[in-house]
């Protein structure tokens, strides 16, 4: 085949140029550490890499979410611990104050401490997160949730919304709890509560109260009225007498599935109120107890009332502590869930990064040996170009 002189030069040039292009590509790969320089290098792998980058970034985002949730729950837990501590102290004080050896002065002292605890509890329940939101206000987190109402009773101004934070696609954790948990502590035995009237003159007290027939429950309030020291009648919510009976200390009085056992010596006209589904708040429990200790306890009726209020407060405090413990357990479980998810996320990130690296990262050993090979090829192309182009018959014509 004839080869023209121009062709000789062109061939040499083309060879050098294509070697240079290859070399520059390898150089770029080595400089960036990436096998894929543009999506066209491997469209399928690039699309996959794009997805992987996206997922890794998602997991990072979920990590940030989890941190936020953990911070919030950590704050919540700290507050719950302090509330539980306060309630435990209230329990001690209730036991202490109910003790017959207490003088009115020492009871006043206990009452003062209880009043302080009550203020502390209110502050704790109104705790704010680092960003200024109230922890126990539900969705209404910018309004102070616990505020004294017109009668001095603490009311709840929040709602029972519960914020959720996404830890992983479709996996959410609840942060924050509604403050209603502090407001709805069932009184008495959990179904109904029996309270002696404050004006009672006798020493009659509630020894026991239980549900013996759940199906007979009506949910209506009743009042046991002592018509004589040894006789009673039961009024319903409308003041209509629904039953009468003879009173024997320690013997149960049955009303609509509920059994109330009274003992002591009630006076005629004494009343015992039966309130089904009655609830109270942690603040009311403490305030009521303080009020009980502040009240005079000189007459037998007053003393009986004091004893009753102290014992029923004990029950209520136990329920309140139980409620707070439930919340803490729940918060702890959610924190565990966050930790678990963090582990899963860390594993996933590691795994995804590994896959990503396989897809888009450069095998340096291979690239470096390719680089040297291409370098040698370029040098060879240059040398042959020079040598071939030097050949000319004209050099030999004299």
């Amino acid at each position, binding site marked *: 085949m004839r080869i023209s002189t*121009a062709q000789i030069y062109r061939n040499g040039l083309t060879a050098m140029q294509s070697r240079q292009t290859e070399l520059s590509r390898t150089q770029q790969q080595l400089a960036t550490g990436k096998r894929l320089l*543009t999506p066209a290098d491997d*469209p399928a792998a690039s699309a996959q890499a*794009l997805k992987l980058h996206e997922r890794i970034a998602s997991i990072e985002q979920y990590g940030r979410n989890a941190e936020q949730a953990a911070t919030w729950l950590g704050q919540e837990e700290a507050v719950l611990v302090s509330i539980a501590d306060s309630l435990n102290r209230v329990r001690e004080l209730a036991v202490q104050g109910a003790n017959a050896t207490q003088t009115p002065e020492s009871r006043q002292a206990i009452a003062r401490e209880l009043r302080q605890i009550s203020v502390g509890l209110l502050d704790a329940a109104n705790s704010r997160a680092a960003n200024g939101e109230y922890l126990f206000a539900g*969705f209404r987190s910018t309004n102070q949730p616990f505020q004294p109402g017109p009668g001095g009773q603490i009311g709840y101004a929040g709602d029972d919304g519960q914020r*959720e934070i996404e830890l992983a696609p479709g996996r959410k954790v609840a942060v924050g709890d509604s403050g209603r948990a502090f407001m709805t502590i069932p009184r008495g035995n959990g179904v109904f509560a029996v309270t002696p009237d404050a004006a009672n003159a006798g020493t009659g007290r509630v020894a026991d109260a239980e549900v013996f027939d759940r199906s007979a429950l009506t949910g209506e309030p009743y009042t046991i009225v002592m018509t004589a020291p040894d006789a009673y009648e039961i009024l319903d919510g409308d003041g209509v007498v629904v039953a009468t009976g003879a009173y024997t200390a320690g013997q149960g009085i049955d009303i609509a599935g509920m059994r109330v056992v009274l003992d002591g010596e009630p006076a005629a006209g004494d009343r015992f109120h039966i309130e089904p589904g009655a609830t109270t708040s942690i603040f009311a429990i403490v305030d009521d107890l303080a009020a009980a200790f502040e009240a005079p306890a000189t007459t037998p009726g007053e003393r009986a009332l004091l004893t009753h209020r102290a014992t029923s407060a004990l029950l209520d405090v136990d329920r309140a502590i139980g409620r707070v413990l439930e919340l803490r357990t729940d918060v702890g479980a959610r924190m565990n869930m966050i930790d678990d998810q963090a582990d899963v996320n860390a594993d996933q990130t590691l795994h995804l990064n590994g896959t990503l690296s396989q897809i888009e990262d450069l095998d340096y050993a291979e690239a470096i040996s390719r680089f040297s090979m291409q370098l040698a090829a370029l040098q060879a192309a240059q040398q042959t170009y020079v040598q071939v182009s030097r050949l000319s018959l004209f050099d030999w014509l004299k």
Partner: protein
Amino acid sequence: MSGGIFGIGISALLAAQRQLEVTGHNIANVGTEGYSRQRAELAAREPLGPGYAAIGRGVGVIGVERIVDQFVNFRLEMRITADAEQRTLAEFAGQVNNLLGDAESGLAPALKDFFAAVHDVANDPTSTAARQALITQGESLADRFAQLEARIQDQRAIASGRIRAGLAEINQLAEGIAELNRAIVDARGRGGGAPPNDLLDKRDELVRRLAEHLPVDTAEQTDGSLNVYVGRGQALVVGFDATTLAARPLYGDPDRLAIGYEQNGRFIDVTSLLQGGKLGALLDARTKLLDPASAELGRIAISLAETFNAVHRANMDLDGELGGDFFSFAPPAAVPGQGNSATGSPQVSIVDVGELAASDYQLRFDGTAFVVRRLADGAAVGSIPPGGSAVIDGLSIDLAGVTGAATGDSFLLRPTSPATTLSVAVQDPRSVAAALPIHAAPGDGNSGAAEIVGVSVLDPTDPALRDAIDIEFVGGELVVDGTPVPLDPSGETVVEANGWRVVIRGVPEEGDVFTVRDNAGAAGDNRGALALAALETARTMGGGTASYGDAYAGLVARVGVETRRAEINADVQARMLEEAWAQRENVSGVNLDEEAANLVKAQQAYAAAAQVIATAGQMIDTLLQAVRR
């Protein structure tokens, strides 16, 4: 007698001289683009004398031949066309590929950052800073769409600029060929039919340069002129006349060009006939690479804006108001074609964002109806009678406002063009709607085990949406607003009323109530933000098959595949072009060593011829001396 020898000697001398000249010309043109080597054609002169002792009369130069193989040249032209086409396509594909696939400047990181900001609002809905950050990230995302579209637009402008420049060059080349035709015909006349080799080379070279721009067909005429046809037999050069090609903007878009020529004052559009070559590639780059990429970006932008807005509108902001549109963008554009007789414009709106296709559409009146053509794949997707309306690919097209349509009238619909017009409509951080407008809760006195597991807003425009309403469980059924809803056996009962939906799980006790209340004031509610965040991975596009990220990854992959194919094609064509060049050089190229050898040969012939003349001289001298003696 001696005259014969002299004559022979001189003829040899002249022939050698001519050979030396031709060799010298070859050597001189070793670097001339398109030069074909030439050869002096020699022939023995006819002998004189009687037949039994005919003596040759020396040598004559009968011509200078240009060594070409028309078939090889034709193949070379074809290869040049194919190579230029693939190279240009690969170049544009590479550009789009780089700008979309870049890890930093592509859409993916902007999308990610935007949804990260949504998550941050969900994590801390009362934070003004997080809300402000969301607005800012939304603006960045809108900017990113605009930047990407602007860079695609840059490529369009580059393509149309190069089409205009290319046409200028084509016209110049055509003009040049026409002029050379005249020169060649003249030269042949003057030279008595001898081919003007160097003019022919020049003309071949012009044809080759023309072949770079578009595929050419040539036909040599008997007078030596060359007719050049482009496209499907469009005459570009006939004899001494060249047609001037011109570009005209379509639909008022300076970068959307129709190519044609003027004939009798009418513009004949031949765009569709021009395929291949640099020009064909530049036209293709727009229709096959840039427009689809831009339409897909637009589709992602619209889907994002529409779906995000829909959720945002069903949410409630910090002031207790329902959210407005988060993003705003220009409505789909309908551009009338040039020379339309119709007045008015079609009303186009998006009715189902999930069904949108990444394409522009053309409406063309065929005399009875407007035929709707999807430009991305060229498919006719419907036809609308004048004054009628239709829903096509999620687009509502209403022609009620279009009157007086004549056959050939057209409109260009660009439903997915608003990538550049996307912006954030929300200015005040408090107006970012991160809460739900209603709150549902079980009543305080409920004794059953039923709980509320889901609340969502179906129709934020329902006037009763935020009315306080109780769902009561009476007689074994949930009753809302007097309408009974039986419990679902699956355990989860869906209750819908007043534009909301509440999902209740479990079985309530008789008399249990679930309250639905206005949620105004619930600053800490993040359910709306969570619903917005969920859009990141929701398959909202392509009829529920792809998330925004998926759609973008799909675009990147498609462009990647296109680019890869274009690069491979370009490589293949480059190699085939190389081969065609080698073949042409094989036939027509100058080899200096060969010329050196020819030089030596001619030089020696010249010396020998001179020797013949010297010998003849000596013969005469010898004779004269003999006579003198």
